[in-house]
Every structure is written in C-alpha cells, then in structure tokens.
C-alpha cells in the first residue's frame, strides 16, 4: 500500500499516524497537511529571515532592520514585495529553460522534506517507514536545481559556484548518512515519528559525535558558513544566483532558508527529542528546538571564516567520513554488547570517546592542499 493509495486510511494504514477519531479520510488529511506545511514553511522562513537579520545585526554591533513595522518584523514582507516588483532578467546567451526551471527544481524538494517531519505525535503528512531515507534522498535533489542555475546562467562565476556545489554536496552526503545510521541503530526504526517516540533521552547525549558530524555535514549540505562556497560573496560574487533577479532570486533565497529550516527540523527530530518536552505543548517544543538549532547555524555564520574548496573536500573525506564510520562501529558494538547498560554509562562513555577521537583527529589531520606548480 502506498501513501497515494485512495483507500489509505490514516487510522489503520501507517501505524498510529493519527488518532482514530481524526475526521475525514486520506484526501482530507493530505489536503490539510499540504496547506499546513506550505504555511509553516513560508511563515517560518519569513521568521527566520527576520531573526537572522536581527540576530546577526546584534552580533555585528549594529541594529539590523528596524524600520518596517514594530521592531522591523515586517521587513521580510517588504522584501518579498520588493522582489516581486523587480524585473525578471534572463541572460541573453543563457539557457532559457534551464534558467527558468532551476529555482523550481531547487525549491520543491525542500518543501517535500517536511512531509515526513512530525510536528507532534502523529502530526505529519506521511509516516513513511523509510522516513529518514526519504529525507536523505529528497534533500539531495536541490543540488540539481543549483547546478542548473549555474549552468543556465551562462556566467563564469555562476558556473564556478555550481561546480563547487556538486563536488561539495556529493561528498558531504556520505558522512551525513553514516551519522544518521547511528541514530537508526539505537532507535531501531527509520520512521521519524518512531525515532522521536523512543527518545526518552535525547539522542544528542547518546550520539554526541553523530550529532556533530550530522550538524557539520548539514551545514555543508545547505551551504551555510563555513561551507558557503557556492555563493561565496567575497570570491565569486553570488555564485549560482548571480544572474537571477526578481521572483526567481526570491525563490533561491527561500530555498536557502527553507533548507536551514528543514535541517533544523531534522536535527530536532533525530537528536533533540523532536516534539518531546515537559509542560509546554509538543508543537511548541518542536518550534523552540527548531529555532534553537537555527540560532546555532547563524551564530556560526556570523563568527567564522570560510574554508577553501580543497580543504572542504579534504575535511569531508579525511575527517568526517572516518569519524562517522568509527561512530557507527562504536554505536553498533554498544547496541549489541551493552543493550542493558544504564543510559548514563553510555552517555559518559560516548562523550569520552568523542573527546578522544576529536583530539586525535585534530592532531593527525591537517587541512591539506596548497600551491600548485603551474
């Protein structure tokens, strides 16, 4: 039975996705959640843009936007209106169709990720039993859109940015997936809802190294500093979206923040216990954690410099990949050998292992690369 089977009933088909008295059948459920996800993504992206601009303003000893509406909260709305009114320019020698299609190809998969993210217990569009695999698969489609943008623009900076993206995202996909496997081993399920349900202790404590690898890999996946090579402002102007204007540029802007939102939501779900939490309603917990992760992402953005392209690749293959493999091995051993161990033992053991491994790698591993003789 597939999700798109009209005979699908949320109360019977896919585990305990919904309370049995949930009104309406599959199509109602589908329609309601599509609307919820679109509204959630757009609203949160606007919130994130405001939050990031104000937050980075604070980090940079300035005020940030504060003119439109109270405390500048309407600034994203004003920006949206502005980009809508801008002229849409297609480069004369660009590939018209590829150029046109690229923002769509980049945007759609990001929204699709939210189909499997549980906002609270069972509140999700489709509780796929391969949920996390779905996330990994879908999230890498955006790269195609970004490469199409770089190719279709007929601009050298865009092409450089696009080339960097492809190399980067293909490399970081691997440690990313391997670090998720640790969580999957402990949870014993690929469904995101189930993963949340088994997290009586947030997995960030049981999988500290996995969390770090996932977080770094995710930052690279969504092209956030220090891995924002594809739109490196000081190097290749704006990278793949140099030639975009108007609504198409707005879509890429939206993709950037929607990806950040998606990654924050996935990290929340996998490592921070999702919607679980005392006192407050589950959905609010989910939101708080998502915003917390996002805060961490833009905190990093406003602090540290960018790595170089060869260092970026070296970091993925020489540092993150071995660490992810070791993490997977250790987790596997722990699940097999110490299934009955007290959680605190495992937590301290894993923290110690992480500290040792990171210390070891920082000694052994050097970001290589250098001058090429020409």
């Amino acid at each position, binding site marked *: 039975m597939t999700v798109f089977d009209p005979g699908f009933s949320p109360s019977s088909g896919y585990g305990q996705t919904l309370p049995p008295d949930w009104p309406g059948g599959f199509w109602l459920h589908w329609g309601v959640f599509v609307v919820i996800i679109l509204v959630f993504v757009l609203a949160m992206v606007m919130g994130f843009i405001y939050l990031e601009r104000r937050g980075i303003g604070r980090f940079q*000893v300035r005020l940030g936007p504060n003119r439109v509406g109270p405390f500048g909260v309407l600034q994203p709305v004003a920006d949206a209106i502005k980009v809508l009114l801008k002229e849409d320019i297609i480069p004369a020698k660009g590939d018209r169709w590829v150029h046109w299609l690229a923002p769509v190809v980049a945007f759609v998969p990001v929204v699709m990720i939210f189909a499997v993210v549980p906002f609270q217990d069972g509140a999700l569009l489709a509780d796929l039993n391969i949920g996390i695999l779905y996330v990994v698969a879908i999230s890498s489609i955006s790269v195609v859109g970004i490469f199409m943008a770089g190719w279709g623009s007929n601009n050298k900076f865009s092409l450089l940015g696009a080339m960097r993206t492809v190399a980067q995202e293909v490399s970081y996909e691997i440690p990313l997936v391997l670090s998720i496997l640790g969580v999957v081993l402990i949870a014993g399920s690929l469904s995101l809802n189930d993963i949340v349900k088994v997290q009586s202790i947030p997995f960030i404590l049981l999988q500290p190294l996995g969390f770090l690898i996932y977080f770094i890999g995710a930052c690279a996946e969504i092209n956030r500093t220090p891995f924002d090579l594809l739109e490196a402002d000081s190097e290749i102007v704006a990278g793949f979206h140099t030639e975009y204007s108007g609504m198409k540029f707005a879509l890429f802007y939206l993709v950037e923040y929607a990806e950040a939102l998606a990654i924050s939501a996935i990290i929340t779900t996998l490592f921070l216990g999702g919607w679980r939490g005392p006192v407050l309603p589950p959905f609010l917990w989910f939101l708080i954690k998502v915003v917390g992760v996002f805060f961490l992402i833009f905190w990093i953005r406003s602090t540290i410099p960018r790595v170089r392209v060869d260092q970026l690749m070296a970091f993925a293959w020489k540092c993150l990949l071995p660490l992810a493999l070791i993490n997977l091995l250790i987790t596997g051993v722990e699940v097999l050998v110490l299934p009955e161990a007290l959680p605190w033992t495992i937590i301290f053991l894993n923290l110690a292992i992480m500290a040792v491994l990171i210390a070891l790698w920082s000694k052994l591993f050097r970001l290589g690369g250098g001058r090429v003789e*020409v």
Partner: protein
Amino acid sequence: MALKTEPFVVNIGPAHPSTHGVFRMRTTLDGEVIVDMEPVFGYLHRGIEKLAEERTYTGVIPLTDRLDYLASMSNNLAYVLAVEKLAEIPVPGRAEYLRVIMAELQRIASHLIAVGAFLNDCGAFMTPLLYMLREREKILDLFEMVSGQRLTYNYMRVGGVSQDVPEEFIPALGKFVKVMPGFIDEYDQLLAENEILLARAKGVGILPKELAINISASGPVLRASGVKWDIRKADPYSIYDRFEFDIPTGTVGDCYDRYRVRIQEMRQSVRILKQALEQLPQGEVRSDVPHLLRPPVGEVYGHIEAPKGELGFYLVSDNSIAPYRFHIRAPSLINLTALRDMIVGWKVADAIIIFGSIDICMGEVDR
C-alpha cells in the same frame, strides 16, 4: 581519449565585492587553480599628479587627501614634510607632536580597515569588519573634532597644522589610548587562533624576502617577509626619534604574517600615542608661511612610513608658485607589483585573500 580543454578566463573585477575599489584581475583558471593573472588598473585615474602641477604649493594639500582616502592624514603629512624640506620651513614643537598624533591615529584607523577587510575576504561574514569599524569611528570622531571632516581632513599645513586642537580633544584622546589596547586584544582573540583562518592564511601567498626587497615593497607587506625596515626608524622624520617603539616583523611572509604584523603595529601606534600625549608641549601650531610659497629652485624627495608603506613625494621647484614636477611614490601600487608572483598556483579563494592581505587603496594606485 583526452578531452579537449581550454583555459577559463575570469575577470575578477573591476566591480567585484572584494577588489577594494575598481581593480581588475584578469585570471586564467584551470579548474579552481589560477594559472595566470594579469592586473588591470587605471579605472580610478584622476590625474592628480598633473592637477597638482597647476596648483600652488599650499593648494595641493586637499588633493593629497584623495590619494589614499583611508589615510588622508598620512598623505597630508608626507606632502607637507616634502615641501618643508624643499623650502626649509621650521615647524613649531606642538605642531610636530600633533602631526605625530594624527599620523599614528590614522595608522590605527587604516590598519583596522585592512585587517577587517582581510578577514571579510576570508569569509567571516562582515562581523570582524564591523567590529573594527566601531573603533575606527572613534578615531574619525577625534579627527572630526580637529578638522571638521571625517574622510578628507586637509588638516596639515606647510609649517604646522591648520589649527590647534579643541580643548575636549586631549581628554578624548586620553580615553581612546586607554581603552584601545583592550579592543586590539579583542580583535586578536576573535579569530587569531581560529583553525579555519590558520588553514586559510598560513603559508598562503608567500612573498619571499628577496622578492619583497627586489620589488621595493614597503610597509607591513615588507615587514611580514622578515625585513626590519620602517622609515620611522631607518630615516626618522618629524620627531619620531623621540619615541620608543618596536618594529614588528613576520617570519614567512604569508597572509597570516601580514595580518599579525598589522595587529602588532596597532599596539605600537598606541604606545607612540601614549608617549606623545605625555610629552605634548604648549605653544604655536603654525609658523608663518606665505600663501603663494615660492620655494628655491631644486628638487626634493620626502617620504614617510604611511600605514600601507613608504609614501613619498618627489617635487621639483622652478621658483614659481606651483611645483614643476609632482610625483607620488604610492606604496599600494608598488606593493601590488608582487601580486602575480604571489597568487599564481593558488586557488581563486586564495587569490582574494592574498590580494586583501596586501591592503591596497585604489585611490593611491591609480591617482
């Protein structure tokens, strides 16, 4: 089967976020690696040297403001020193001290921009730059007190300075000198030991000692390569022989050394400011100089240690009211000549930070 490939020519600039003005690097790329680079400049040429030959000796001072617009005070100082040397004009003691104070404040302001822009080029999203602009703002406030301007000060005069400082200046400067070392430490701690910055800047864009001397590089670029050459010590002008300070030098000559040297130089400048503030005498700030100055026939080369290197003015006088020949030895231009040797073989991202670490000002390169 070998694929047919051809070089990928990318114009970085003239309008590019990190060309610090309107500089163009015509780079030939092999993937990300730069195999060739041709610098193209002249986009900001205003003919200042020729314009100066049509003006009186005192009327040239505002033009010098527009050379290195991030260090106008230093430009003023270099020019008036050259004219004073040519016409043998005495300068009152208080004016000498005020000049040194302004020049050192200007050095701090210029280095703040240099370091901030360098870190920004490394990809630290605006934060270091904006922190450094915060302190530069305080220096600009001080300059505004004395000259009424925030960018082109036109403060120095042949034979002194345009006016004495207002009474609120000295306490304000005292406060600045007191707090500035703390802020320099803050910038230092922000990123100095950052792993990414070390990986990006250490060993990148090395300018060997011999090459640095051969191209006659000067300023922090030369000192970072390990040459202890500072005109304030090597050929003391004004009253620099009365102050105690060190010349910070680097060892390797890479981008990181240049960054470190600038940070250290700011500390030394604060040291000089402290001493100058203690010794500052009372008295006149300007000697009597005719508006239409007619220096005796002859030629002169006056040079100072400007923030970016050796800034020299070469003047030829034919005893008329305007210089017969007016030439500027701009440190930015001469330091820039090493650019190709430094960036070939590195990647695009490195080229940007190597270029940023030289710290040029296009107003001075093109004049």
